[in-house]
């Protein structure tokens, strides 16, 4: 118990955690729209996959564009065991984590041999191969035609698919929202625990200089394999939850899955590389972005002076410069580039800087948040 609480070092962090818990509990009570629930479930899925990626990239310095592959593996494993075989929730979750974790562990040794640039390409290769396998392994994945995830169990202690508390009946979307964010919360605790203990420091030593880490007695190989497995497992769980949300899986094409991987990376970049809550912040910021643009397109829209046309296309008249989807993609790409250029520590870093400057004006203190290093990929 005391250990758990030691996770939160400052009063600010404790208040933040309390607010986060409260937000998760309350949001479905205030919002009954299936749409917004679905958007926030998707954000939770991004957060979960991002937490795993942050462990891998942010803390251990292993560059990867392969996160979507683990998400896919987890999603299909969940569908196979949860929907086809009817396994209970905890078991299909475990299976999804195990499958994606094992593939992650299998990638680990490659990371010993390849670094930086090469590792990026190996991770891209993983996406291509995963998509190819899922496109063709009909009996497991349904092949190109995809696979239904209907009837997957969401119950452990309570049925999240048909949640009823104190006589209040929740929609399936609201139930899944609770489930997803409970999982995100647990994963956050797990990551925070890993980071502040000995293994976490070993990972950061690997990031900063892995040959040197070896010299001071850190078993680089073992640690890399473990972190790949952990990161994969978390992405796998994220995939399982996303499968439950969407209800139908297709392998898509490798290129679109690669774009999904890029989204996961962007989540941690914008949120804060190498910070525990970075993935959550980034996911909440980037995840709902396209849907917000769609939803509020008429409020965002304005007439662009020089060309005298509205910025966003009206689907009725086709008049305007760009469609909503193009606009949100542009916004996304600009955010990614701008954060990398000017705020490599992401929103969390920005927050810490603000807090620090406020504190400087008040009582002087050295609590400027965790030590964040930009991702280093030694050659």
């Amino acid at each position, binding site marked *: 118990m005391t250990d758990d609480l030691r996770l939160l070092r400052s009063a600010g962090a404790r208040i933040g955690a309390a607010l986060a818990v409260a937000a998760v509990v309350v949001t479905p009570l205030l919002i009954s729209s299936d749409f917004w629930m679905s958007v926030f479930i998707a954000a939770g899925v991004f957060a979960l996959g991002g937490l795993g990626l942050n462990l891998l990239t942010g803390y251990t310095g292993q560059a990867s564009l392969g996160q979507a592959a683990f998400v896919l593996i987890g999603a299909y494993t969940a569908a196979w065991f949860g929907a086809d075989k009817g396994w209970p929730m905890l078991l299909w979750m475990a299976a999804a984590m195990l499958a994606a974790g094992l593939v992650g562990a299998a990638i680990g040794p490659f990371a010993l041999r390849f670094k930086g640039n090469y590792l990026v390409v190996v991770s891209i290769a993983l996406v291509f191969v995963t998509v190819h396998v899922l496109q063709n392994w009909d009996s497991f994945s349904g092949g190109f035609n995809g696979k239904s995830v209907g009837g997957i169990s969401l119950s452990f202690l309570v049925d999240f698919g048909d949640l009823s508390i104190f006589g209040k009946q929740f929609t399936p979307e609201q139930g899944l929202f609770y489930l997803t964010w409970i999982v995100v919360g647990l994963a956050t605790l797990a990551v925070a625990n890993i980071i502040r203990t000995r293994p976490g420091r070993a990972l950061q030593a690997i990031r900063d200089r892995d040959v040197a880490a070896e010299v001071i007695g850190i078993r680089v190989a073992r640690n890399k394999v473990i972190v790949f497995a952990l990161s994969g497992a978390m992405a796998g769980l994220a995939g399982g939850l996303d499968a439950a949300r969407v209800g139908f899986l297709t392998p898509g094409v490798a290129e679109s899955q690669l774009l999904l991987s890029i989204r996961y990376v962007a989540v941690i970049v914008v949120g804060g590389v190498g910070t525990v809550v970075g993935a959550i912040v980034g996911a909440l910021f980037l995840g709902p972005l396209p849907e917000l643009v769609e939803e509020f397109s008429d409020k965002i829209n304005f007439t662009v002076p020089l060309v005298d046309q509205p910025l966003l296309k009206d*689907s009725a008249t086709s008049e305007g410069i760009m469609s909503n989807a193009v606009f949100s993609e542009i916004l996304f790409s600009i955010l990614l580039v701008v954060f990398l250029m000017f705020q490599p520590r992401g929103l969390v870093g920005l927050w810490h800087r603000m807090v620090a400057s406020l504190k400087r004006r008040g009582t002087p203190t050295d609590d400027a948040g965790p030590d964040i290093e930009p991702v280093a990929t030694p050659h």
Partner: protein
Amino acid sequence: MTKKLWLVSALLLTFALFAAACGSSDDSGDSAGSDTTEPTDGSDTTAPTDGTEPADSGSDATVAPDDGSVEPAGDPEPAPGFDGETIKLGYLTDESGPLAILGVPLTTGSQIYWDYVNEELGGVGGRYQVELATGDTKDDPSSAVQEYQRLKDDSVLFAQILSTPPTQAVLEFLKEDNIVGVPGSLAGTWANEAVLMPNGAAYEYEMINIADWFVNDSGLGGVDTVQCVVSVNDLYGEVGLDGLEYAAGELGFELTEKRTMNRNDTDFAATVSALDQAGCEAVYAITVPREQSTMMAEAATQGFDPIWLGALPSYLSLLAGPNFEKFYVALDNPDFNDTSVPGMVDFLERFETYKPDSGAEPNSFFFSGYYQQIAVHALLEKAVELGDLSREGIANAMTQLGEVETDGLTAENYVYGAPEDRIPTSASRIFVYDPDNPPNLLTELALLDSELNDGYELGG
């Protein structure tokens, strides 16, 4: 001490909010939904409607005349997607993904149809304007579900769901919410789903028709012609191939070489070489347009010059070039220059009037988007007539709809109803590439409904 304070305050806060929210949460969803109302623009579309031809309005009634047996009901009550004045339709299409090449013109075609209804007929039932709300699925189930959730509380029905994976993904949700959806493809697979309203001929029938035509009527070949097939790796390719294999079995020819391809393939050297080596004289193409163009170019390179027999999605006039000379395709729509088809004359006229400013030429995809809405229009008219635009009302209207007249725009009229009462269309028109017949660069050769179609079970 601080630990305790933290825990207690968190708990207190949580429960306070929980209690506060419980009381007020029940109706918050509806208000969130109605925020999305977009400004009505139907009335200010200053399209030059030629009001000089009142006689024309008679043939404009593309909707099946009702039996007259139903007493006109009262005005429909407001319902999700209907505020008492404006009917909103959801469109789940691909605006920026791999199928944008189809999705964008399809929506434009639909918009043209509804512009016409709003402007010239005064809307559905002569009084309810129709608005379109589109969601971009990127041809991906995940985005499709999200866009479905976004639009569903503000749409009376989904008048277009493009491509199979998004349709499969939202089907469960449609059933659960009892919302009618119009799949933009795979009429055959969906004919048995009560909430789905398929359009046009199934790919299975298209392939049976074109095979029957080729072997028996075309004069280009017979059962002894070496026939092969290339199909795309997805459900469309699969069902098309299924229909073709059935036809081959019935007509008594072999498919000598069977190849598959993926979307996004860029190299067809091996495919073409295999077809060439197998001595294929006719190749059925259950493919998609860009990849088909690439394959045709590779065929030209290798000097492989068979007869191509394509399904509807394999051809797009925009991407067809001089090497398409021996390209035949089975379509639903008539020749774009066939003035004997009243529906086609209307289409071209309305296309001219309501088309976007970009100066597009009519093509099959605009056309498909347009004519698919005729059935939706008929359904809405029926629902208005029955005085109920709610989800249940529309589902009910569908079971009573019956035959929808398309004024010759489809080779045959679809008869709607409960799944067991439906009679899907099964006729196709066969076209050949003709660069001298713009805009669609096709000339009609035949209209047929193969006798074999009766023996083929859709979705089997």
